[in-house]
């Protein structure tokens, strides 16, 4: 954030929106980051800050951010707002926005908000931008950064329309870490008529694999490419070995699992390979763009449509038999030209010994 607000410019009115998480009690981590940012922006622009909350029960959650210094806290709560359903979420968020009349609306880009806030912007005759990676004040006006063409072109944008809804990606700011407090909260009654109850959210479903392989908060992204299922130097495919090496590594390292398109497409075709891989694991142009401090790619060629999904992975290493693969051409910090089967086997052994030693040390300390 640079260049604070100048005197005499339009005064912005900021609304920060949050929802409780699935446990219905706490706020998702991303909420604290965007709250930190909203407080910063409000201070720099001399703007007022209001908080809007939705969820079945918001009291506990509101207390967590009670000392954030917001001038007002509004909430829409009750059983109708437990489920992330478009129709009821849109009604609740619309009601909060109409009550506050903000010029800027800042919210974390959770799935729940991403699938409803652009729709709400239309109702308020405002406009929304998503996947915002940063905000900056230039010449007294707010500007936002986001990527176009799936992480291949970064733009700084500005909008004249108000309210301007901004959905911010995680990692955009330090999380706010104030003390809990007891805010005075205005609870707004919002009635959901029958025509907005045509959809019923019945629950969540985990992918077919038993192990949870996608861990958004992990320090490491582990990417498996199609090489794991290709014929190796002995002329044979080693699918089962690949599967057990990868699962063991995930268990020991607590990494999040990503895959190349070629690999996840094979799983979709029901070939007998890496049963735990689904399209949700796919990283790249037509897959996800996850955020982790580190990434390790194995048996993946590092082609551009894959590597654009690594835009927000800071430190990148790759293991590939081919010294001329994409990673060698400035896409990774380190490329190990080696057999991933052998390297990962040894990595797993070392990690296992490491964790045993740690356990022993804790036992002795006790």
């Amino acid at each position, binding site marked *: 954030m640079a260049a604070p607000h100048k005197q005499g410019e339009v005064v912005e009115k900021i609304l920060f929106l949050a929802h409780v998480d699935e446990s219905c009690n706490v706020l998702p981590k991303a909420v604290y980051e965007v709250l930190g940012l909203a407080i910063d922006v409000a201070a720099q622009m001399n703007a007022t800050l209001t908080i809007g909350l939705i969820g079945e029960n918001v009291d506990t959650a509101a207390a967590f951010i009670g000392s954030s210094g917001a001038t007002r806290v509004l909430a829409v709560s009750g059983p109708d707002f437990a489920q992330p359903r478009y129709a009821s979420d849109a009604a609740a968020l619309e009601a909060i926005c109409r009550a506050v009349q903000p010029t800027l609306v800042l919210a974390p880009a959770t799935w729940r908000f991403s699938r409803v806030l652009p729709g709400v912007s239309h109702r308020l005759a405002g*406009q929304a931008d998503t996947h915002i990676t940063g905000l900056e004040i230039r010449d007294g006006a707010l500007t936002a950064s986001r990527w176009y*063409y799936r992480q291949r072109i970064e733009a700084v*944008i500005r909008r004249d329309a108000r309210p301007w809804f901004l959905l911010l990606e995680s990692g955009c700011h330090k999380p706010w870490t104030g003390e809990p407090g007891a805010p005075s909260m205005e609870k707004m009654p919002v009635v959901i008529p029958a025509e907005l109850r045509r959809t019923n959210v019945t629950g969540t479903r*985990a992918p077919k694999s038993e192990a949870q392989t996608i861990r958004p908060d992990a320090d490491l992204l582990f990417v498996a490419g199609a090489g794991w299922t290709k014929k190796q130097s002995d002329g044979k495919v080693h699918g089962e070995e690949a599967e057990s090496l990868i699962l063991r590594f995930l268990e020991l390292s607590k990494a999040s699992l990503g895959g190349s398109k070629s690999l996840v497409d094979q799983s979709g075709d029901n070939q007998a390979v890496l049963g735990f891989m*689904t399209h949700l694991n796919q990283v790249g142009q037509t897959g996800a763009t996850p955020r982790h401090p580190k990434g390790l790619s194995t048996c993946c060629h590092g082609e*551009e449509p894959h590597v654009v999904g690594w835009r927000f992975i800071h430190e990148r*290493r790759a*293991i590939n038999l081919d010294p001329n693969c994409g990673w060698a051409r400035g896409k990774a910090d380190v490329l190990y030209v080696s057999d991933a089967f052998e390297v990962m086997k040894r990595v797993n052994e070392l990690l296992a010994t490491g964790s045993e030693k740690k356990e022993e040390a804790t036992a002795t300390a006790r």
Partner: protein
Amino acid sequence: MRNGYHIVVCGSIVPDPLQTLEPIETPGGPALKNEMMLPAVLDPWASHALYEAANLASKVAGSKVWLVSVAPKAKLQQVMMTVAQKVSFELVAVDGPASGFGDAYGVAAILADEVQSIAGLDRSRLLVFGGWESASRGAGVTMQLVGERLGIADQFQGVDQITTQADGSFEVLERIEGGRHQVSMCSGPPALLGWATGNLPEPRNNPQVGMANMRTVMPALQRAKAAALAGSGLRFLSTTPPKQQRQTRIVKNRPVEEIAQEIVEWIGK
């Protein structure tokens, strides 16, 4: 579902992802260098929506699929040469920009108008499909706005599956955090679904389907009216390709043991 669904898929074209993209400044705002020369494909998530629509239509008798596309006519025609061979649909074409820098608000206004002007469209059977995000703007905004403009309050985004019941109701799986799906039951059309990858492989080219489609695709392209995006007040202060590439350290001819140790150390740091 009695009489079948009316499925309208919204989808445009994007540059083939293997192409290098370079932003340039034009009087009308940012654009891609040689944009009209870049080979294009149907936007990937929208194409999944189209395959899912065709699959659903093939299972429920009386259903019909339209593809509504706002794109430069000449490029759209090229892309249709392959897309039309995949599945059956009727094209509704609008000759307009497909740039990622064009604002979703302008695009959604055109799309919603076009959907509404489809002759014989029955709202009580209507499912509006599209990609939940484009590969150009990548925003996930357009389809929500189309839904709002059409007054559709049952919206789903990041959809990987729809399972319909005989009474017209359906179950939808939408992507959520942690690689899981949210499961919803909707009592029936009208509804809007922004698709992610879904579950279907890309259909093989079928020249017969291609020939049948072309009978309506070519006239639709000829009829396509030109449309500009309404000014929305979105301003670009800069557009830049990603910064400098990394200096890759290539580690060759090192024993597996050393590599493994280095990796374990790095992970633990």
